[in-house]
C-alpha cells in the first residue's frame, strides 16, 4: 500500500486535536478520518438547550452537563474516536481533560434527517463501547418523542412521548418529556 496515499487520507489524533482546538469549525474524528459537523435547525437547537438546561438545573457535583461543543473520546482496542454529542453528562471528578471527556454516563443526540442514521448505528455502537455509559437517548425534533436505551436492559428501546415522565437513571433525574419541547411549535399543534 502506498504510504503517500495513506498519509493523504488519515491523520493522527494529536494532529486532529491541535487543529480542532484552534479551529472555527467542529469536526468529529473516527480512527484517523475527520468529518465536518453540520449546522442545526432551530428545533434541534431548542430541544438540545432545553434538555441540557433541565439536567444542569438538577445535576449535582461532580456531575457535569455538556452540550454540543464538548468532545467525548471513545477508545477501544485499536480504535479512537472523538464525537460531539448534543448533550452528555459525566460523573467522574478525575475526568477533566480540557477539551474532552472519557467517561460519559448519559449521552443524548437530537435526531435530524442528515445524522439520524449515524446516531442510530455508528455512534450508538461506539458509545456502547464506553464502559461508563449507562443510558443513550435519541430525541426527535419532529414530534414529542424520546427513545432511551439503557445498558441495564441490554440497550432495549424504550419510548417516551407527550406527557410521559422519563427517569434518567444515570443522573437520578425524572422529567416530563414535554418539557424538552418548550418553545417548539409543531405544525398545527402549538405546544
Amino acid at each position, binding site marked *: *500500500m*502506498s504510504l503517500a496515499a495513506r498519509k*493523504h487520507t488519515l491523520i493522527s489524533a494529536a494532529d486532529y486535536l491541535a487543529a480542532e482546538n484552534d479551529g472555527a469549525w467542529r469536526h468529529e474524528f*473516527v480512527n484517523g478520518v475527520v468529518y465536518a459537523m453540520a449546522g442545526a435547525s432551530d428545533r434541534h437547537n431548542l430541544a438540545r438547550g432545553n434538555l441540557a438546561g433541565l439536567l444542569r438545573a438538577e445535576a449535582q457535583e461532580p456531575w457535569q452537563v455538556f452540550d454540543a461543543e464538548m468532545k467525548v473520546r471513545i477508545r477501544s482496542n485499536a480504535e479512537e474516536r472523538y464525537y460531539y454529542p448534543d448533550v452528555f453528562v459525566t460523573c467522574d471528578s478525575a475526568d477533566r481533560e480540557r477539551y474532552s471527556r472519557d467517561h460519559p454516563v448519559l449521552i443524548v443526540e437530537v435526531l435530524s434527517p442528515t445524522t439520524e*442514521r449515524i446516531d*442510530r448505528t*455508528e455512534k450508538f455502537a461506539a458509545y456502547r463501547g464506553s464502559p461508563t455509559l449507562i443510558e443513550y437517548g435519541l430525541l426527535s425534533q419532529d*414530534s414529542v*418523542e424520546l*427513545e432511551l436505551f439503557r445498558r441495564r436492559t441490554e440497550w432495549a428501546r424504550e419510548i417516551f412521548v407527550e406527557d410521559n415522565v422519563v427517569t434518567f437513571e444515570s443522573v437520578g433525574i425524572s422529567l416530563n418529556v414535554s418539557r424538552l419541547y418548550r418553545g417548539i411549535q409543531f405544525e398545527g399543534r402549538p405546544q
Partner: protein
Amino acid sequence: MSELAATFAPMSPQEYFAFEEATPLKHEYLDGLVYAMVGATTRHNKIAVNIVTRLNLRLPRGCDVFVSDVKVRIRLAAAEFYYYPDVLVSCSETDRHPLYREQPVVIFEVASPSTLRVDRGEKLANYRQISSLTDYVIVGQDAPEIEVYRRRNDWAREMLGAEEDLALDGIGATLKRSDIYAGVTF
C-alpha cells in the same frame, strides 16, 4: 400518544419486503427501521458500471455479479439488516433467494460525500460479520481514492496506492485502477 408511539413499531422483514414492493424508492432495512436510498449521480453510476463490466469478464465460474438492485441480508444474533451494495459478487450455489444474497464474497460501495461515513462505519461493521466476505472496497466518487478492507488483514483500512491495482482475494481477480475510473475525470 399511542399514535406517536406506533410510529416506532419496528417493521418486520416481511413488512419491509411488502413496503419495498409498494414504493418506487429503494430502502435499506436496519433492524426494524428503514432508510430511503438517495439517488445517484451519473459519475457514481459510471464507476459502478465500470466495476461490474470488468468484474464480469474476470469472474470465476459459478460466480455472479450484481449491481445496485440486489440486497444483501445480514443476520446477526439480535438484529437483521438488508443493504443495497453498489456491486456485489456471490459465488454460492445455495444462495439463491430472488431478492437478496446472504453469502457475498466481494462487496463494493461507490462512496459519495453523503454516504462515505455510513460506508466506512455502519456498513463496514455489518459487512464484516458476513462469514463468506473476503473483500470490501469503498471507491471514492469525487476523488480517486480506493479503500480496501480485507478479512485476511483483519479488516484494517488499506488505501490503494496511486499506481496500484485492486487484487480481490475472494475471486482471484484483479481490477485495474484505471479501469475502475475509466472515463471519469477529477
